[in-house]
């Protein structure tokens, strides 16, 4: 109430300096939005424009010769369809398992009476400060026979110390009396966890799920490292990465081939494929994150304060 009143009063007494400042600020924010969004919008326009026409340049925010050709081509590639399936699978499985395991450990180390509360917390937090490094980790995966399997995407990143701390802080904030009452009624820790703590922790579960899902969906390096020779375990990001690594050279080849009339079918070019895959690889996240803004802002603040 107070703030609202103040806001109204402020608006009444706008000085000239205020007007200049606000105008400049709004203009700056609009320019910033353009910088943030342009690269992405440009790729949308390119992906919806006929590839043979895009070569001429001059595509900015709107397609000149509208077509779904690029999407049809991309979705007709077996490797990309496989990549989408594996990407979705790892995102769903990795997020569900990760959030459940993180919550379980977080619940245990949030209990005052737990005898290993301190030591387990330290064991996990220590992992924020060092890691074995690329090669030793690679050899461990080899020795555990995880290379060439789907589980190499899930198991190594099951619990992150950062997410664990966010969740622990949240669970510690739940009033103790709720647990006590359930325990007096004879509920064990598993029942308290599943029937009381999980439903009460939805905001933090949403935050951590978003972090995990984004991490899984965006990951490409573990595919490159462990499963690059296994076509059935490729992911969308990895396919895009391969296109990206080849585009610089293949664009030139393609153009010279076009010029010499070698390619009669010029319905797609590496550039248009790259643009289309970029959109396909990022659209799912872009459709989801704005709705979770309230949660992840809170989660970030909570995690940083602790």
């Amino acid at each position: 109430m107070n703030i609202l009143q103040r806001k109204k009063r402020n608006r009444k007494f706008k000085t000239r300096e205020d007007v200049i400042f606000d105008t400049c600020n709004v203009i700056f924010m609009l320019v910033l939005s353009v910088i943030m969004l342009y690269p992405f919008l440009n790729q949308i326009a390119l992906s919806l424009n006929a590839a043979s026409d895009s070569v001429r340049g001059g595509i900015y925010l709107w397609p000149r010769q509208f077509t779904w050709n690029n999407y049809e081509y991309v979705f007709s590639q077996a490797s990309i369809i496989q990549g989408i399936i594996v990407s979705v699978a790892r995102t769903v499985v990795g997020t569900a398992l990760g959030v459940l395991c993180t919550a379980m450990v977080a619940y245990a180390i949030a209990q005052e009476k737990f005898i290993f509360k301190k030591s387990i917390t330290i064991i996990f937090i220590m992992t924020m400060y060092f890691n074995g490094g690329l090669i030793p980790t690679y050899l461990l995966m080899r020795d555990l026979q995880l290379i060439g399997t789907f589980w190499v995407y899930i198991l190594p990143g099951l619990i992150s110390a950062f997410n664990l701390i966010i969740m622990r802080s949240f669970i510690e904030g739940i009033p103790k009396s709720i647990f006590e009452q359930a325990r007096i009624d004879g509920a064990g820790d598993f029942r308290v966890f599943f029937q009381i703590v999980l439903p009460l922790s939805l905001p933090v579960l949403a935050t951590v799920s978003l972090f995990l899902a984004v991490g899984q969906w965006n990951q490409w390096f573990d595919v490159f490292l462990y499963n690059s020779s296994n076509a059935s375990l490729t992911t969308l990001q990895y396919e895009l990465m391969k296109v990206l690594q080849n585009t610089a050279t293949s664009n030139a080849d393609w153009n010279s081939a076009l010029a010499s009339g070698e390619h009669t079918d010029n319905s797609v070019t590496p550039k248009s494929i790259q643009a289309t895959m970029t959109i396909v690889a990022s659209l799912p996240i872009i459709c989801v994150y704005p709705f979770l803004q309230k949660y992840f802002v809170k989660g970030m603040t909570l995690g940083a304060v602790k």
Partner: protein
Amino acid sequence: MQAHSKLNSASSEALHQEEKGLKPFLKKCKSQRALLLMTIPFVIWVLVFRYLPVWGWTMAFQDFKPARAFAEQEWVGLKHFIFLFQDERFLLVLRNTLAQSVINLILGFVTAIGLAVLINELANMKFKRVIQTISYLPHFLSWVVAAALVSSVLSMDGIINEILLALNLIDSKILFLGVGEYFWGILAASDVWKNVGWNTIIYLAAIAMIDQEQYEAAKIDGASRLQRIRYITIPGMKQVIVILLIMNIGYIIEAGFEAQYLLGNGQNMEYSENIDVFVINYGISMFNFSLATAAGIFKTVISLIFLIAANSFAKKMGQGGLY
């Protein structure tokens, strides 16, 4: 027989003495078995997946051959470390790591604080929310997508070349990613573009904690908008700024590898290759596991020194430290 029973009683006596500490402990374990069941599997997990690889550091002191058993590996002492510091390529890599980190740190810091202050000054709540949502967007994109966008914007027929040409700032188009000298700048700009919005979250939270009465009082005293920012908003963020600065200095050597790896190419390698990319290039592409691990250990040790120093500094400054 007698001896046996004697031994038995002696050992039970010893047990009895221990039981004073052990029995209540076991009893507690039993009563908390649900909590133990919830954590033990994951403690084993963290020990295997996070702690066990550290054992692999031994291979930096060997001429490691993957096919051989541990006992058959040939120990070579500090050979690989000595090689690294005599290798001109590694010295370039060190320079790149430091330069990239310092530039990213300073630029990332200043832009995030500046943007947070400006977002806070927006009066229209709806507009403010939209701007925040837009500024978070690049953070959620993968580095693969971000690299695709950056290289497209910077390509010969990209928008940057067209704008510079139209403004007559350049005479002919530039292949930006093909010029090594531009790489650090491109990297820092990409990093700011990707993360500046996300990094404002914490500063905006700090600004929200500032007592609104201070602004009112300053206004009555005739303080201008800029003066209010200078004397109320920025000092109000001071504590968070100091903590984050120390934390970031602790992580300074962790400049990441994705952007460097994905935007790097043969032409800009002299400026793009940092320690992490070096490890990938030597370890994965050339199978020189020992040398790559030595470089990795070097990085981890430096990073730990920075972190511990930053943390004890934070504690001395009365900021509580990070752990």
